[in-house]
């Protein structure tokens, strides 16, 4: 089933075209990587999908519904969860409370104790069980990223947008993170659209990859296809290296 549909999405900031006629689809159950050089418009695209930024032209459809003009919180309750590249924890609140905020919306009908239990489960899934009472502002970067993940999962998403959750981790942690994302995908029956610069991770886990460059979708295909595409190599390495390789 078609879960996310982007139809000629465009967005400019002043004279800079951050996104230009981006058209793409994500099927339910897929894990799709979104890559591209710095400034390609990846995070802008996430912000448009999540409703933080409204696009100038084009349409965003989620599960058949046109959500282009929906406010952020409504998009979240419809089933799109996200993490932020630059982490945004509720700094003065404990990890448990951070997750409980999300559960106070997504699990409204459940009792307080049930929610606390679920929050603890989620923190355990991402490996933060021992830090549930720590104020989120005191966590290190990796733990903050784990918390972002737990909080996003607590919204009961069908589609999860992950913005560089692996960036900044060492190679051992990257391995762990890959295993975690793979596990989440299976356990929570998630569809994932993710931005990542760690090629090892994105090539290994993604079913399909979208490549953005200067706001345009320049290539789309399996990891294998994309990594051999001349346009992609040019976007990443420049003209001369494309011809010499």
């Amino acid at each position, binding site marked *: 089933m078609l879960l996310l549909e982007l139809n000629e999405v465009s967005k400019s900031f002043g004279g800079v075209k951050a996104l230009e006629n981006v058209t793409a689809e994500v099927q339910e159950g897929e894990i799709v990587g979104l890559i591209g050089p710095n400034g390609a418009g990846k995070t802008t695209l996430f912000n448009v999908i999540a409703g933080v930024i409204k696009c100038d032209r084009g349409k965003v459809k989620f599960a058949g519904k046109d959500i282009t003009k929906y406010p*952020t*919180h409504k998009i*979240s309750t419809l089933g799109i969860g996200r993490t932020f590249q630059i982490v945004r*924890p509720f700094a003065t609140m404990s990890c448990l409370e951070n997750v409980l905020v999300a559960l106070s919306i997504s699990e409204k009908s459940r009792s307080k104790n049930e929610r606390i239990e679920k929050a603890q489960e989620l923190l355990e899934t991402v490996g933060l069980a021992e830090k549930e009472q720590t104020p989120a502002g005191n966590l290190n970067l990796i733990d903050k990223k784990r918390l972002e993940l737990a909080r996003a999962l607590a919204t009961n998403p069908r589609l999860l947008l992950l913005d560089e959750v692996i960036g900044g981790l060492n190679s051992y942690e990257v391995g762990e993170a890959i295993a975690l994302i793979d596990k989440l995908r299976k356990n929570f029956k998630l569809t994932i659209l993710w931005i990542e610069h760690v090629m090892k991770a994105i090539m290994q886990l993604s079913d399909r990859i979208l490549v953005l460059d200067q706001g345009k979708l320049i290539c789309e295909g399996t990891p294998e296809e994309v990594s051999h595409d001349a346009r992609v190599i040019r976007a990443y390495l420049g003209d001369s290296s494309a011809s010499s390789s």
Partner: protein
Amino acid sequence: MKRANLVSWCIAFVVALILPFLVSDYWLHSLISGLFYVLMASSWNLIAGYTGQVSFAHAAFAGIGCYTSGILAVKFGIPPFFGILTGIILAALLSLTLGALCIRMGGIYLSLTTLGFSEIVRIIIQNEYKITRGTMGLKVPFLFGNYSKITAFYIMLAAVVLVLVGIYFVLKSDLGLQFRAVQNDEIAAASVGVPVVFVRLTAFVMAGSLAALAGGLYGHYLLLITPHIPSLDTMFLVLAMTVIGGMGTMAGPVVGALFLEILSEYIRVYGEFHVLVFAIVAMIFARFFPQGIVGFMGNLIKQKT
């Protein structure tokens, strides 16, 4: 709530109950004013300390509360109890309107808009001489029955207890959790489904209504209401009380309001210079105890254990 906290609150309550029999008539007046400021600072803390909206319209809503009820009593003979209720409803509607206009702007724009609103309210009250008697002040009846400071004290105390318990339960609820999430990070809060504008507006209307309650009760105790209640002087005093006591804590505004009210009694002898003393106190706190008295004490206790 932690047991030690609960015990402290209970002790404070018991002390408050017997206080009217221990102090002079003069200090009793001070205490009643102090309780008014406790109501004001605690409700302002709800928006400034828990949802991060620095509104300057709080004193104006207190003014709307006391003038609505005062005018109804004087012109139509309506008992203060119903008058105050009407004032609260009017303040709720006005804060809903004002909030709907300026909450989306947020930050400094919200502060500026509410500042403007506050001055508009004060100027209208000051100039509509025929209705409000302007700066001469409007003579209003006592809360009920015969005038008694002790009655006024207990009514104020009852209101303070009800409001504080109410605020405590709100903060404990899902809404309270969402308040803090919105204050921490709006975008992150929206991304997990928190309806940010709605949450902010709820806090704004709650605070406005509580200010009207405080103003109404205080006006019928003072017997003479003047445009001083909806003035920026009152507003900045409430702000100073909340900040010096400790924003974003339950006890902070209570401690701050009583501390500054009592302090102001002692520095009154310096006439206009008392403003200077206030400013110095505020600066000392901003420099050395940015988390206020309660935050500072909390850290002290944590370090010891």
